[in-house]
């Protein structure tokens, strides 16, 4: 490792502002790897904020990446809506059965308060703990499920598609509730110390919904949510392709857009020099089977493609690296960036 002259915060902020920095910033979006570091189960790990704070600090020390994760798993948001979280031993917690059972139910639904729920409080405590440890030297990532994507877990994907296409009144009602809820949850994280909020919105990808329907129904929802948010925000398509809606999303003024392995980062960056920075786009799932040499080569290829363009933060393409990605590959990413991601050494 070479001696860094900038803090991670300087590096990320500088990159967003298109200033010269020492190297390409990278974020490893490691969540449950913290449980591996501490040698405990994922369920136990998430039960106590102290564990997650410790885990995040250890991971950042080990890989020297440029942010820590304050928000760690999104299934917890279902608790606010009366649903359950299902834990597994080797993957991210998932949402159980969707709490909204039929379209009718939406009419009597209210936007939940979450102050009394431990999982929300834990997330805020994690963010505050990380802030206390790192101060302003390290970006702390907060996150929400975007109001337009949240219904996939609130009611199931099949029912949600039907809602969008066939039940305009209930769709509108649910969006009102979700806008209020998501912006409130985002602001609570910002207040606790999150540097920016990642709005996970795969339904803004044309893989999931055609662009015209997104523009008609999803875009205004995102716009209103962001208007209500106090802090900085990014949009992440959670590995859905971004190419067709990238310029639309740029109009929402996020600081960063997270794109998929199927997108061409270079072309996107060149398509609009006023567009936000791009986060991406290594395939987390394929990273499980890569060798460290392959990993390194893929990182090198990506860097040589986009490094000179700036406005780029290297990361996986989903916003969370899978449990089975081995340490050797994560170290390979870190070392390759240290070697090939510097701006003044080549």
């Amino acid at each position, binding site marked *: 490792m070479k001696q860094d002259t900038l803090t991670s915060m300087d590096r990320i902020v500088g990159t967003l502002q298109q200033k010269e920095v020492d190297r390409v910033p990278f974020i490893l979006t490691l969540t449950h790897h913290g449980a591996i570091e501490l040698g405990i189960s994922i369920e136990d790990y998430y039960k106590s904020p102290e564990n997650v704070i410790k885990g995040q600090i250890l991971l950042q020390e080990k890989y020297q990446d440029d942010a820590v994760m304050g928000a760690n798993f999104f299934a917890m948001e279902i608790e606010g809506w009366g649903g359950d979280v*299902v834990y597994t031993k080797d993957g991210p917690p*998932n949402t*159980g059965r969707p709490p909204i059972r039929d379209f009718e139910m939406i009419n009597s639904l209210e936007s939940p308060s979450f102050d009394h729920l431990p999982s929300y409080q834990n997330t805020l405590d994690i963010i505050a703990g990380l802030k206390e440890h790192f101060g302003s030297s390290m970006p702390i990532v907060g996150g929400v499920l975007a109001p337009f994507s949240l219904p996939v877990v609130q009611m*199931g994907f099949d029912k949600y*598609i039907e809602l969008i296409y066939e039940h305009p009144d209930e769709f509108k009602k649910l969006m009102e509730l979700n806008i209020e809820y998501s912006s409130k949850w985002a602001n609570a994280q910002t207040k606790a110390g999150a540097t920016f909020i990642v709005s996970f919105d795969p339904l803004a990808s044309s*893989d999931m919904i055609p662009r015209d329907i997104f523009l008609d129904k999803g875009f205004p929802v995102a716009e209103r949510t962001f208007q209500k948010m106090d802090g900085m925000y990014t949009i992440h398509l959670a590995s859905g392709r971004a*190419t067709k809606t990238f310029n639309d999303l740029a109009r929402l003024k996020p600081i960063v857009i997270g794109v998929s392995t*199927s997108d061409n980062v270079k072309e996107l960056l060149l398509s609009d020099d006023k567009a936000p920075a791009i986060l991406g786009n290594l395939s987390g799932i394929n990273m*499980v089977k890569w060798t460290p040499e392959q990993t390194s080569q893929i990182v090198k290829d990506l860097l040589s493609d986009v490094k000179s363009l700036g406005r780029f933060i290297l990361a996986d393409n989903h916003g969370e690296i899978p449990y*089975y990605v081995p340490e050797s590959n994560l170290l390979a990413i870190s070392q390759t960036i240290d070697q090939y991601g510097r701006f003044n050494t080549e």
Partner: protein
Amino acid sequence: MFQELVEKLFNAMLVLDYENVKNILLDSINNSENQDFTSEELLIESQKKFGELWVQGDIALSQVYMAGKICEDVIEEISPNFKPKNLYSEKIYTVVLEDFHILGKKMLDSILRIAGFKISDYGFGISVEALLEKLKQDNPQLLLISTLMLNSALRVKVLVDEMKKLKLRTKVIVGGAPFNIDSDLWKNVGADGYAPTATKSIEVIKQLLGLQS
């Protein structure tokens, strides 16, 4: 003639024109004497096109789903008229292993029924252990597994290994996002087959079970 009709049906489904979908199908059923294809072949071919365009990134998942839904609704309305020509009697089950993500399976069940298969249901969120018990009991010819999470996809390997120990001969076909993202994964977990979309699985099933197309 066939390709032209496929195109017409595809376009009607794409714009969600229920009446038009119904009429094209009814015409094809009434005209079956003079055609060298069946109405389910027509339906499946147009659904297949949705799947292929989705994999390429040219259309959205919601369009694939709504096209499937229109098919189902139309078939339900005209059901006395619509009967698949080939009805298969093989014992086939579908399941969502460990996950709670049912959309992939729902799309799969729907198209396989249209294709004339009798599909039984092992539900969702089921563990490897519970699934093994059921397989021992029912001994089906084929099991189709859908998963969305990577760790659930990897669990197929445990299932297949246990099935071998128990000398269960059920063939296993897998699908879902992790298998689409890592194209080697289906082989690595020891499945007998894989398809990138629900409709594509029909060919794989026929090949694995030695059924004529």
